[in-house]
């Protein structure tokens, strides 16, 4: 089973209800994450506002921020490999990733930056 890490922009609340507009993607993702955990999946989300150290302490995430900035978030790593950026994953995607066998250390060193992000990103847009 693989480990999924979701690095999110700075948010006040998980669902973004405190923001000027409520992002459906964020609401749905919060529910999907709860669901996957209920299934025993290993998924963790990091909010840049409350845990910036998790961002600074991970080379992949820090480099991503330097190139794309927080507007490129969220960034999703599966076993340390950049798998998705610029939008939240669907329930199908996290289910699939969660079930894949853990990625080998050799593959991890070939982390790629996925820059083909969705045109709509960040809270308040969608």
């Amino acid at each position, binding site marked *: 089973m693989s480990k999924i890490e979701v690095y999110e922009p700075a948010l006040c609340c998980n*669902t973004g*209800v405190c923001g000027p*507009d409520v992002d*459906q993607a964020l*609401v749905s993702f*919060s529910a999907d994450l709860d669901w996957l955990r209920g299934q025993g999946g290993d998924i*963790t*989300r990091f909010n840049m506002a*409350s845990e910036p150290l998790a961002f600074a302490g991970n080379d992949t995430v820090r480099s991503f921020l330097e190139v794309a900035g927080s507007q490129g978030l969220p960034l999703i790593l599966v076993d340390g490999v950049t798998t998705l950026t610029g939008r939240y994953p669907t329930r199908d995607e996290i289910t699939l990733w969660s079930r894949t066998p853990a990625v080998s250390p050799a593959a991890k060193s070939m982390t790629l930056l996925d820059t083909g992000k969705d045109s709509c990103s960040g809270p308040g847009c969608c």
Partner: protein
Amino acid sequence: MDTPAFLTDAPRCVFFTGKGGVGKTSVACASAIALARGGARVLLVSTDPASNIGHVFDTTIGASVTAIPAVTGLSALEIDPHQVAAAYRERIIGPVRGLLPAAEIDTITEQLSGSCTTEIASFNEFTALLDPAATHLAEFDHIVFDTAPTGHTIRLLQLPGAWTEYLQGSGDASCLGPLSGLDAQRETYAAAVRTLTDPKLTRLVLVARAQDAALREVARTYDELADIGVTAGHLIINAVLSQSDTDALAVAITRRENAAIASMPRSLAELPCDRIPLKSVEMVGVTALSALFDSSTTLSEVSDAGDAHIEPAPLSALIDELALDGHGLIMCMGKGGVGKTTIAAAIATALATRGHEVHLSTTDPAAHLADTLGEGPATMRLSRIDPVEATEQYRQRILRSRGADLDAQGRAALAEDLRSPCTEEVAVFQAFSRLVHESRRRFVVVDTAPTGHTLLLLDATGAYHREISRNLGADGGFTTPLMRLQDPAHTKILIVTAPESTPIVESVELCADLERAAITPWAWVLNNSLAAAHPTNALLRARAATEVAHIEAVASRYSSRYAIVAMASTEPTGADRLALLSGEVAVSPAD
């Protein structure tokens, strides 16, 4: 000294809560003195950012337990929520400064400047004080708090079965950001909740004035806390004018106070209640505080009060300036209970009477104002935003639209997030944005305004949209509601306050909030001034004299453009009375 009912058989923890300016700190200090004089060892804890308990006791207190030399058995502690929140922000941001890009550090700081952070950071501080097992507090028989936690904070700590998930350091704690990663404190939180909900350990004392708004506010706090199991409540009605006098103002104030008490919310009316008479002096020093619970004030105490001399500064002078623009947004901002609605209504009525087209929008749930103003000038339109209703509609709309495809667990999580204190800010702001747009064509006068936190969120959105339109090559011409609020030619912000120390301190904080969003207030209005009403009653004259220094401080330090509005002897509703209040028509002061 008489022992009031709320201190009889006091449990270990006694919380005093209420709206700013009702005298909560004075009552808490006086209670701590009374308990200590009764032979108990007492710790007095303030979480009021405007805390002046150090000044009251002539001792520097601060963030560690400090003995008060003037009162045997009494110690004190001051927790400043803003300092606590700043320290919390620094704990998070400090380690990554220099590691993350500067723009990201700014974003994080902005997100951590909201009311959630402040609320929870200070709650964090005093949960530690509520743990009966805290050995460093074992010496104290009573802990007296001069503010109570809100229902929202406690409810988050009580989410059933959610401890593990919320506190296992994943950063997954919605609105609990400051608590994430603090699994070790889990037992402290559990103990705090047990202490708060046990009437043998905790008593909640609601402090209000004999005013509708103050009574409604404590009723709401009480209902919220009752929902989560804090039920041991007492009510104090502070600074009641109990004078038999022929002074027209004194008679009128007594009549207004009696009416407010008679119509208080039912949940309050059922509580044991103490009334504390208005005193002639400000509650500073052990001597004054020791006499707070005495049921009478002797006239010798107040007989030598001179007349308070203040320069007149009528509201009509400000209205003259406002009228020059012909249109625009006029916002009356200030903490609850200072009379924002009345001032907004007076300004709107005056502008409409002068022939301008005016839209007055109020958040005052008291519909009688709307009824009276309905007969006002024909060029004035009235609308009402009920924050509770707007918030509920917003919650239901979000649950219906965004929560439509969620399972039961997902909907429950979303519903909980929607109970965040930020939600009301957002809901009111949405209603408010429509008014901003309208003010391009006529005068729009509003008695409420979004907080700094909401403005910052909006600014972030505005900046994002501007960038998008730039990238897409749109032809500029982009104006967000925030940009209109920042434009002094379009928006005039009036800070409404009472000429008393706590409301003024709170207004200064409000200005700092606005500055963060690059909004500068236009003028201050000092409302309900006794000095400006020239009372003949000795007690009221003595109170009037205490206003002089506060008025001078506002004029010299905070705003050279200000108005002073006299305490009205009659309920200031209706076009005629509002015109008297603003000085649009001349009257004898105590009429």
